[in-house]
């Protein structure tokens, strides 16, 4: 059955002619239809998607270089697509069809990937549980009373339940890695600037980065290869060569120094998570890695700085949703100001409003220095801590999250406790570094546990090869939730 195969395995099957893209795509579209209770997808166009798959099969017969052609992936609903709605989990964009494609979408299309559909997400990528979506919460396939994590919750649930062999997400403070950890998947946040942000609805522009959510590091390497590269339409896109990530996968772990920050093995985190991380680190040692104690003394202030910087940037980015040129406009209004205020009040959900308000406050006259400037200085100190640490080690390892997936509704009334979920992921975004989450075990109730590997700037290849070495000798990443086998 195609859904038991990784993206890389499906690619090999397509190459040998053992299966067609139409067969694979039909199978996944059927699974999406049969599993709507998870609420993982917000837009699917079966006919159009099948037409693309048939086109891919046709091209494959007539092309010499057809590697990757016809592989299906799911796409977070934050990427602009001309063919499907781009709602970003929000009422204000619930009728928005983009007049252009995001660069990521162009890259996927150029390499022959088929988009299976757009996945559910926290509204404007603001959330850690996928409960802030206008289209309702996504359920975790491992236990449907639990959240899948967020904000790329639909993407993670889709891959976890094998409704798609892989998915694309975005990560501003942990939105790829945390849902990957909660759903037993491999999730890569590349370095800031590695993948173009053009056509990706902006939340916090100095932190946002797209990346793959997959079944393995090998699949992540395959998708990163397609997604990465310079784009003149994104002023922060890096004009540096993209390495061959797949051929770097087998570099191995011999003499790789893994830095273990004592701040990340805090006794306040879940004991079962801690124990799974320790067991995984022993496995890394057996594979040749050397564990080194390091310090990231200011990392705990990451959440504080993040919740100034991200809302400040969001308040500015989201000012364009005003009901004038596109998106939701209120039905009745007395004047222009009234139209703005009502359209935005109706169009945005609670969490988005909170972040716009806190961001506006932090940027307003009299508070700018105390909040925004202070947060930017703390950001520099956190980035400097990482630079210092990387003098002693090659990669940094620790838990992705302080706990496994929490129950739906648990943190809904308490935004601050929700924010604390991202304590280990946020510092990485502040510094702009690449990091991956990979599955390393389960807790007693059967919920997956994720380990995070952080690398120096642009060292995605090293992270992927370390994760791949571990996945060659373990099978946590191949586990499928019982109801979806």
């Amino acid at each position, binding site marked *: 059955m195609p859904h038991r195969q990784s993206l890389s395995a499906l690619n090999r099957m397509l190459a040998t002619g053992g299966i067609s893209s139409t067969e694979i795509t039909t199978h996944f579209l059927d699974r999406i239809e049969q599993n709507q209770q998870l609420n993982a997808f917000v837009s699917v166009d079966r006919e159009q998607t099948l037409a693309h798959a048939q086109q891919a099969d046709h091209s494959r017969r007539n092309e010499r270089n057809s590697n990757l052609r016809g592989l299906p992936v799911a796409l977070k609903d934050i990427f602009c697509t001309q063919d499907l709605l781009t709602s970003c989990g929000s009422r204000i964009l619930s*009728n*928005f*069809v983009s*007049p252009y494609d995001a660069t990521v979408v162009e890259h996927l299309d150029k390499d022959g990937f088929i988009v299976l559909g757009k996945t559910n997400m926290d509204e404007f990528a603001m959330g850690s549980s996928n409960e802030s979506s206008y289209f309702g919460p996504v359920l975790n396939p491992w236990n449907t009373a639990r959240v899948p994590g967020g904000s790329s919750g639909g993407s993670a649930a889709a891959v976890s339940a094998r409704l798609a062999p892989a998915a694309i997400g975005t990560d501003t403070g942990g939105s790829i890695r945390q849902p990957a950890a909660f759903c037993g998947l491999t999730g890569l946040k590349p*370095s*800031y*600037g590695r993948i173009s942000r053009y056509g990706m609805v902006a939340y916090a522009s*100095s932190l946002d980065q797209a990346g793959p959510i997959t079944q393995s590091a090998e699949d992540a390497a395959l998708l990163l290869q397609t997604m990465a590269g310079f784009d003149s339409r994104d*002023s*922060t896109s890096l*004009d540096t060569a993209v390495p061959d990530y797949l051929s770097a996968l087998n570099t191995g772990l011999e003499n790789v120094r893994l830095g273990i920050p004592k701040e990340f093995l805090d006794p306040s985190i879940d004991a079962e998570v801690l124990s799974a991380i320790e067991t995984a680190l022993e496995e890394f040692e057996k594979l040749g890695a050397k564990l080194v104690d390091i310090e990231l003394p*200011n990392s*705990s*202030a990451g*959440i*504080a700085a993040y*919740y*100034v910087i991200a809302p400040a940037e969001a*308040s500015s980015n989201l*000012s364009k949703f005003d*009901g*004038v040129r*596109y*998106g*939701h*406009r209120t039905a009745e*209004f007395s*004047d*222009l*100001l*009234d139209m*703005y*205020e*009502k359209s*935005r*009040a109706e169009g945005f959900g609670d969490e988005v*409003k*909170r972040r*716009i*308000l*806190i961001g*506006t*406050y*932090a940027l*307003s006259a009299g508070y700018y220095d105390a*909040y925004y*400037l*202070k947060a*930017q*200085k*703390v950001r*520099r*100190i956190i980035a400097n801590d990482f630079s210092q640490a990387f003098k002693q080690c090659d990669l940094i390892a620790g838990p992705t999250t302080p706990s496994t997936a929490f129950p739906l509704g648990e943190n809904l009334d*308490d*935004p*601050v406790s929700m924010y604390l979920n991202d304590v280990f992921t946020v510092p990485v975004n*502040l*510094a702009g*570094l690449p990091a991956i989450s990979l599955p390393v075990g389960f807790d007693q109730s059967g919920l997956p546990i994720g380990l995070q590997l952080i690398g120096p*700037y642009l060292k995605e290849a090293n992270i992927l090869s370390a994760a791949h070495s571990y996945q060659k000798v373990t099978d946590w990443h191949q586990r499928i939730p019982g109801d979806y086998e």
Partner: protein
Amino acid sequence: MSISKSDVERVARLARIGIEPHEAERYSIDLSNILTLVEQMNKIDTEGIQPMAHPQDIQLRLRDDEVKEVNKRDQFQAIAPAVKQGLYLVPKVLD
């Protein structure tokens, strides 16, 4: 630091988000809690530290001044809430 109801109303006006009086009450509690979290950063000594706006310490690129984009007005306006004769319609601003 706590944010009062009137602070919330002022900020909501700046952000052009209409809020009801009972919402202002709730937001003042939520936002005050968030500020308490945020103020943990005051424990860190940032004397003499340059603010970091961005992960890359590089200069913005300049591009050649050439025409690349084509006029897509019709396409853009096809998704607008209200247009007339190629113009976006909004309530009257000046009498």
